[in-house]
């Protein structure tokens, strides 16, 4: 059993598991941190961004000044943003049989895999994952395509040139594999390969293994996966949460008794408690708005935003913010808000019960109804007519490199009355802000990551007791910035195996059993014999038939009547030799009684030696040695076959035959 690790990002995993005869890809996350090296794509012409000076080498050489621009001491690539793909060379991706998706954030690289690697398999995901994943992809494509950029920079990627660049460009990894965003057509084609699954549904893969999605409690439709054969069980835990937010709670019990547990997608901010962060978010929002400032919340169009809107729904009246407009701007805002209300079966119990009242499960419906929350596909069109300040704007993309958020950063960045509040944990907020410097607006970092923290992981592992844990290397040591925090790492016994990008792990686990079915007529012919109370044995002679990873014992064909013909038999018609088998033996030899028997039969001068594994009976006179061990008995004598047979028969007297 092997694990091919194609992504080094612990929360955007992409691993391939070879288990029995199947090749299973676990998630295909897309690392978008690469976009932070690019200049933002402004929706409205920005003189500031277009007038940034080109970057030149220390010696004044300015051959890169078209590709690289400088802003407040940082250098950015002036080109269409590119993404860092999972490793494609480590394993032939066309051999992947299935892809299992655990949540909508972990499927963003899907079009790259399904459309460009010769992949012919099936993708399994839950319906909300697919629908919201589609929205995220659609938004991404829309953000990038609606600001066409003629220029595509590639010179800087040359290894010799990259060495000369300042950090972080100099240290960017795998730049040659960075790709531009996919198209909507590719998205549609990729999504058409998905087969929808429900929680606890058992899916047979070629008869070899069974895969089952389980609720992971992190997002709408998010799943962990169980991959099991009859005697082995691998659990794949990715992006799970034990907090009471909107999704169905995590199913922990089904993860018990795993041989291997692959653990990814833990919280990216283990030191920030989501509840405290929500409090911080509300306080800062209220403080800004009360002072007449605007609040900008860069966010994804689905996920935490639902919880934030719910908190605000409860908070705004008490904080006297009822008259403040909330705007949600995204090409998929409308669909996202509506989808959330129809996936009742995937929601937590409280929200599910609301549906039967009937009431919308999320209170943002009421916010929309009362005009407190308004949503728009973009800043163009209706929004510009309704726009009223001070206000709160939720919009993407959290990287601040594309999407409507770029416009608001340019618009509000100059005033210290305004605040940008970062709630998505995927990007470093300081790096995200770098191309907007100098910035007067206040910046607040309240990352809300509801995924498991290390305390919860430790409890989970104690509860489910896997034999082995496999996780990204980042989880096996404290964060580099807080090296003394040994509480911020996985602590389990035996220690977790770690992996990094482009590594192949041989999982420490050997398959020992396989299930074989026995045909009824063959079973009928068996005559079991009880060799000790409760244990019966029978010998069986049969043909092992193996097809589609299923093994069946069938009755042996009757020996063919000798035809006497001279036809040459084809090899495939060979009938297995059914020799008459010697009886099988069981039991153990009591040494003392054995020696007495030997003496009775005329052997004298017998000496018994104890060995580590059993006994040696020495017949000194006959120069013979009988080695008795737990599972074997050897008679060693010099070419005296008569003696050997005599002794053998004496040994056999003590054993049962069947």
């Amino acid at each position: 059993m092997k694990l091919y690790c194609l992504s080094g990002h612990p929360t955007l995993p992409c691993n391939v598991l070879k288990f029995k005869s199947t090749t299973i890809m676990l998630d295909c996350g897309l690392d978008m941190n690469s976009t932070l090296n690019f200049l933002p794509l402004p929706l409205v012409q920005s003189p500031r961004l277009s007038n940034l000076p080109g970057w030149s080498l220390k010696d004044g050489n300015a051959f890169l000044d078209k590709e690289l621009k400088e802003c407040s001491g940082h250098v950015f690539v002036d080109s269409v943003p590119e993404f860092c793909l999972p490793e494609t060379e480590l394993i032939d991706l066309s051999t992947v049989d299935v892809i299992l998706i655990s949540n909508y954030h972990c499927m963003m690289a899907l079009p790259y895999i399904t459309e460009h690697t010769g992949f012919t398999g099936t993708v399994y995901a839950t319906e909300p994952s697919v629908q919201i994943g589609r929205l995220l992809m659609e938004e991404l494509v829309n953000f990038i395509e609606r600001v066409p950029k003629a220029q595509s920079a590639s010179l800087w990627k040359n290894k010799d040139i990259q060495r000369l660049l300042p950090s972080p460009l100099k240290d960017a990894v795998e730049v040659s594999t960075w790709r531009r965003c996919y198209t909507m057509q590719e998205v549609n084609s990729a999504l058409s390969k998905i087969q929808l699954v429900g929680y606890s549904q058992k899916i047979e893969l070629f008869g070899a293994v069974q895969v089952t999605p389980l609720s992971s409690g992190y997002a709408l439709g998010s799943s962990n996966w169980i991959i099991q054969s009859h005697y082995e069980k691998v659990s794949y835990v990715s992006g799970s949460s034990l907090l009471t937010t909107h999704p169905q709670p995590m199913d922990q019990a089904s993860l018990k008794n795993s041989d291997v547990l692959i653990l990814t997608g833990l919280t990216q901010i283990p030191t920030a408690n989501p509840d405290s962060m929500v409090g911080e978010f509300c306080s800062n929002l209220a403080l800004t708005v009360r002072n007449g400032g605007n609040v900008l919340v860069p966010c994804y169009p689905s996920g935490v935003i639902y919880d934030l809107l719910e908190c605000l729904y409860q908070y705004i009246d008490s904080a006297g913010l009822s008259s403040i407009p909330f705007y949600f701007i995204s090409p998929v805002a409308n669909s996202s808000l509506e989808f959330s209300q129809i996936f009742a079966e995937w929601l937590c119990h409280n929200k599910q019960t609301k549906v039967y009242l009937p009431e919308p499960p999320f209170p943002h419906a009421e916010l929309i109804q009362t005009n407190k929350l308004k949503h728009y596909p973009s800043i163009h069109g209706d929004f510009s007519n309704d726009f009223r300040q001070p206000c709160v704007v939720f919009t993407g993309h959290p990287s601040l490199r594309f999407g409507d958020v770029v416009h608001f950063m340019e618009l509000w960045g100059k005033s210290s009355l305004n605040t940008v509040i970062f709630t998505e944990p995927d990007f470093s907020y300081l790096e995200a802000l770098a191309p907007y410097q100098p910035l007067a607006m206040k910046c607040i970092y309240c990352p809300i990551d509801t995924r498991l923290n290390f305390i919860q992981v430790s409890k989970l592992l104690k509860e489910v007791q896997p034999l082995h844990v496999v996780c990204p290397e980042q989880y096996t040591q404290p964060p580099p910035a807080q090296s003394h925090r040994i509480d911020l790492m996985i602590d389990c016994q035996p220690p977790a195996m770690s992996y990094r990008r482009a590594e192949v792990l041989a999982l420490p686990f050997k398959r020992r059993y396989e299930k074989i079915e026995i045909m009824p007529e063959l079973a009928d012919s068996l005559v079991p014999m009880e060799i000790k109370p409760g244990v019966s044995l029978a010998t069986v002679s049969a043909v092992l038939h193996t097809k589609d990873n299923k093994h069946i014992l069938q009755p042996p064909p009757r020996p063919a009547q000798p035809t006497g013909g001279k036809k040459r038999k084809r090899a495939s018609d060979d009938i297995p030799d059914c020799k008459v088998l010697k009886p099988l033996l069981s039991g153990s030899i009591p040494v003392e009684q054995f020696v007495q028997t030997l003496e009775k039969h005329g052997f004298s001068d017998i000496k018994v030696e104890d060995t580590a594994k059993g006994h040696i009976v020495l017949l000194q006179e006959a120069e013979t040695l009988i080695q008795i061990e737990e599972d074997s008995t050897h008679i060693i004598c010099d070419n005296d076959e008569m003696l050997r047979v005599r002794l053998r028969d004496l040994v056999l007297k003590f054993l049962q035959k069947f």
Partner: protein
Amino acid sequence: MDPECSRLLPALCAVLADPRQPVADDTCLEKLLDWFTAVTEAGSSLLLLQENPCLVELLFHVLKSQDLSSRILSFSLRLAGIFAAQEDCFQYLQQGELLPMLFGEVGPLGGAAWTAPAVRSGWIQGLRTLAQHPSALHFLAACGAVDTIFSLQGDPSLFVASAAGQLLVHILDLVMRGPAEGRRSPQACDWPACAQKIVGHIEDSLCSTDIPQVTQALSVLTTAFGHCHGLWTQGLWVRLSPLVARLLEKDPVPASHSLVDLLLSVARSAPSSDRDLWETLAQTLSHLSPTQAGPLALGILKLQDCPQVLRTQAFGILLQPLACVLEAAAQAPGPPGLLEGAAADSMMVDTLLSSKSACVGLLCCALAHLGLLQPLPQRPSPWPQAPLLGAAVTILRLCSGSAAPTSDVGGRLCAILVGCGRVQRAALDFLGALSQGTGPQELVTQVFSVLLEYLVSPESSSMVLKKAFQATLRWLLSSPKTPGCCDLDPHTQLFLRELLPVLQKRLCSPCWEVRDSVLEFLTQMTRHCGGQAGFRQALLASEVPELTKQLLRDPESYVRASAVTATGQLSSWGLCATPAIPECPGAQQESLLVELLHILSTDSEGFPRRAVMQVFTEWLRDGHADVAEDAERFVAGVLQAASRDLDWEVRAQGLELALVFLEQLLGQRGSHCPYAVALPETAPPGVLDQALQVLCRVQLFEFAFRALFDCDRPVAQKSCDLLLFLRAKAAPCGSSQEAGDSPNVASVEATLQRWQAGEQGQPLGYLEPGAVVALLRSIDLEGLRDTLAESSDHVEKSPQSLLQDMLAAVGVLGENEADCY
């Protein structure tokens, strides 16, 4: 006993003896026992029994009856104990063989009733009350009660077990305190047989391998040394201390908690010259585990006379956990830590790192113990203020994750403590306590910086934040003033500048507890520093006053109440939100007054309205500018709103405000001392007339008279006091003599009578000053005051009422029974 009770008693005894009559409840029986105790303390029990033969009959009946409830049986045992406490009555009961039947082996002791804990408890309490005289001792010996008490020490009911232990001590004390006490040698060999038996039992228990038995013996001894002060206790200690010392040789020390209690109890009662005792204490300190030794160390340090060596050792025990933390977190070997010369004990380190609960428990105890010691006069000297401050700061940093210890132990401590709210709260409390002392400036800076870190951190829970605010307040108030200047010192000033943005953010917290804590902090800060320029400047430059004002409309009533108090305080110091219109500075203030009045008359919750009344009273007392402008109108408005309030505390506070107003008009109230010789000073007639006119205009009398008949006693009492004060001031005013007969007064009196009867709908109408004075004279205010002074249940509390109630309860049940047939 009064005749009426004597008359009711036979019926009651019949009810009690009748198993078919369920007695009301245990409380009634307890009250009955209290009453009998009072009666027997006041007079002869023998006489009581002779005059009321039904009581003895009851006791006999109880013995015969098979199906009586365990409550009644327990009651009877205790009742018999009360009667037999007097020796003559004891003899009287003995003649009838009643006592052996109740307390001996033939009584409930051997029967099925004994399974009820109430009966066993009643048996013990009965004996406890009975054992007051030598005859009782003979009786106890004769009926073998002591052996039963021994066995009851291990009773499954904790109440019974504990009472059994106490009874043993009582008997021991009674035996030893006899007339021969002075002659008795402290050596225990010639003690009476009963004492020998008890002490022998204790000795056996101390040597037992059964830990509960050791615990029982230790707690009996603890009680003995805590409550008995005879010379014999010294002899007892001499005899038993070797056995106690032997317990220390065991590992682990058995029943360590009880052992600590015993040693402290002995130490408190022993003479300070007892070197053996101090030796045992020192030995115990070194034998017990760090967690067990903490309470003993604290107890030793609280002792008045105790050798310095032992105090040093005990203090070392308390300091050890903190010393370990300091050492583990130290970046480099620094100046001598808490325990000079001694490195952190490895056993302590092991305990700290053994588990999270052990670490948290030990640190919390150490911090709490040191916090308790800090203000005591007998605290160890020199008090290591600086290292303790350092330790508190370090613990807080470890808990927040901001400390970056380099050592292995430090790293593991950090992993255990990070985010631990219990330790955070304990450390913040301790840090607050340390504000009473001084420290090097560098450390004080660190204190403020760690406090700020906690106040800023979103991870601080609301309780931790509250403690952080409390500690901050204590440190701010104790920070040294710049010599020759009443303003804050520059460090505090700097801290305040950083603190105010935090307050701003916290005032917007979605968690109401947080908003409330900030408002309380702000109120206290303003109360103490409202006059200091630095504070005023920083506050006015922030948005805190404006945000505070906005919280007057908070959805949470506690927050509204705190916001009312805070804005009231801010306004008193002229620190309320800056006027919106610069030309008319009063506009904003006036609007605050209007807003508070609005809260008073419309808020649905009591807390904000009470807070408004307190603010208004304070404003009136302090002569707040906007109130002083037109105090009459202000008082009239407030009283009108308060009189309609459903909350009695608001009405009572209204009377407080009225009193302040009265004092301002008529002069201070006289001394509150009831023994003061001077009569209240009367006001000059001119002033009085004028004042009465004003009081009539603000309708203070209508408010006060209405309050006089208020259904809530404290309001009526307060009103009565106020009117008495007013009458005293107005006493010599002759002009009102004639007004007493005017029709106006008569109709008012009639209205008041109706009010008193509960019909308060009718208004009083406008009152003339003359009529008021006449009314004040005509109403029997003193009589009213005396009636009000009696507790509301004074009638119901009488024994007669108790007996009647008990009978009535059964009587009613009887009627129901009849109905059923």
